[in-house]
């Protein structure tokens, strides 16, 4: 990663590159009260490091207090993403499918996924099960909160992709949407991506569960998540759009994921 950013900055003279690469900002002193960049993408809200800390702490407490605040969980993820998003991006760069995703930047919306076409597929096919999951939960891929607080355009896309592919994880693993299963999925994501938000959700989320749910979580979901999170291929590099017409078992086999034991 260091060599890549140095290669980028060596193509133009340092004094003419006003927006230094992320790496360079570590070596120059900036007031923690100044936002580090201008607006880099639509919806970008550049915030100072001081504000970022406040947002991280505030959104952590708000999300713990009211887990239905999706926007707070999103804000927590973005304000703590930092170097971890860079690690995910670099991992994606090592995989050819991941490189394709970063180049083409596909967005997952109801039009791009062609949900009506997916509904025509036979049962047991990944696309069909995915749409069934969306219809059961009465959600659509369009209701995800956009990214605001990531100070790099490519990393903002990585964050957006992480959020958008969450539904595919449910279809892949067979986990339901109960709160304990969601936390189980966060453990899975923690092993896969290492994002601080997943770590916080994994360790503080169970505080809000009943003892029965906690028992289920730690006896069934967490061991499964730890085993399969580490066995599975890096799911951020998976171009889900290409896997829609394969069967669920085939997808699970290819990605080295065993379905979660049903409760």
């Amino acid at each position: 990663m260091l060599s890549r950013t140095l290669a980028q900055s060596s193509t133009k003279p340092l004094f003419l590159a006003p927006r230094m690469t992320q790496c360079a900002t570590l070596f120059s002193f900036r007031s923690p009260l100044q936002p580090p960049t201008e607006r880099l993408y639509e919806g970008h809200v550049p915030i100072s490091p001081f504000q970022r800390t406040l947002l991280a702490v505030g959104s952590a407490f708000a999300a713990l207090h009211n887990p239905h605040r999706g926007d707070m969980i999103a804000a927590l993820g973005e304000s703590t993403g930092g170097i971890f998003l860079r690690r995910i991006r670099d991992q994606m760069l090592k995989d050819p499918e991941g490189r394709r995703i970063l180049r083409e930047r596909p967005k997952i919306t109801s039009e791009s996924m062609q949900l009506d076409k997916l509904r025509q597929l036979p049962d047991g096919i990944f696309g069909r099960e995915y749409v069934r999951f969306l219809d059961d939960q009465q959600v659509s891929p369009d209701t995800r909160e956009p990214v605001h607080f990531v100070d790099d355009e490519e990393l903002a896309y990585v964050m957006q992709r992480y959020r958008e592919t969450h539904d595919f994880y449910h279809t892949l693993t067979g986990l339901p949407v109960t709160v304990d299963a969601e936390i189980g999925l966060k453990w899975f994501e923690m092993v896969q991506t290492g994002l601080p938000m997943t770590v916080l959700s994994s360790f503080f989320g169970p505080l809000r569960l009943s003892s029965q749910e906690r028992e289920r979580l730690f006896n069934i979901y967490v061991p499964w998540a730890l085993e399969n999170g580490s066995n599975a291929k890096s799911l951020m590099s998976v171009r889900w759009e290409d896997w829609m017409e394969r069967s669920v078992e085939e997808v699970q086999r290819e990605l080295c994921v065993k379905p979660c034991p049903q409760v």
Partner: protein
Amino acid sequence: MASRTALKQLAARRTLAAWVPSRTAGFSTATKALNQYQQQPASNPSTATTQNANQGETHFGFKNVPENMKETLVKQVFANVASNYDLMNDAMSGGVHRLWKDHFIRTLAPTPGTKLLDVAGGTGDIAMRFLDYCRETHGDSSAQVTLLDINPHMLEVGKERFTQTQYHNTSQVSFMEGNAEDLKDIADNSMDAYTIAFGIRNVTHIDRALKEAYRVLKPGGRFMCLEFSRVENPVISKVYDVFSFDVIPVIGQVVANDRDSYQYLVESIRRFPPQKDFARMIKEAGFTVMGQGYEDLTFGVAAIHSGFKL
């Protein structure tokens, strides 16, 4: 996932209270229209200059907007913040706004039977304190307050709050929807006192609001304005800036899920004229001011401006 389905159920329940617009949708459609307007001049300078000649521009926070748009945008801000307004005031000022308002009413020192027009009265903090002061200090229950606000949502919250008090269903408080720039339902020379607390900086034409205030007051009547103002002390000013631009939008986002409205609020404070300039505007509207015409509160974070119609 669970959060999204729960949000959908929450949204379904909220449609029952259909008069409340969807909070973020209301503000973001306004900002989309704002962005479209701002992109126009770059592509077509000739039409832009004629547009600007026809409709003047004014400020909306740090942005510039056409004058006729500002009122709609401000309306949307306050529709968004109405339900959490009092909670956010406490969170942003650490409860100090209560001290400011208490001092404001003590400075007004109303006598028994005073008729007050509380403009931009919204959730009723000033109106309630006024009636409480008359009752506690003079044992008076003939004081009357007309609570006027341009925004029906804020007025609803105010009415709701008054139902919990002993002034509910009495002639002491009445509610009116109206515009501070054009108080057409209020007769000339009819009010003993006119107050506007944290409202005048949102008015598009402050001079018109001041002229209307002069018109409706009786001779001898008092105009009083409580508003955010300029902090002169450089150290406190820096701390205040950091607090305004870094802490308040985060509080707005965490508590109320509405960063943009609170960003507007802190930017509009910076755009309001400083104490001396505003005192001059009050004099130009015809009021007689005593001394400097203003009193700083909390190092100038807020200020009380006062004038008499003689």
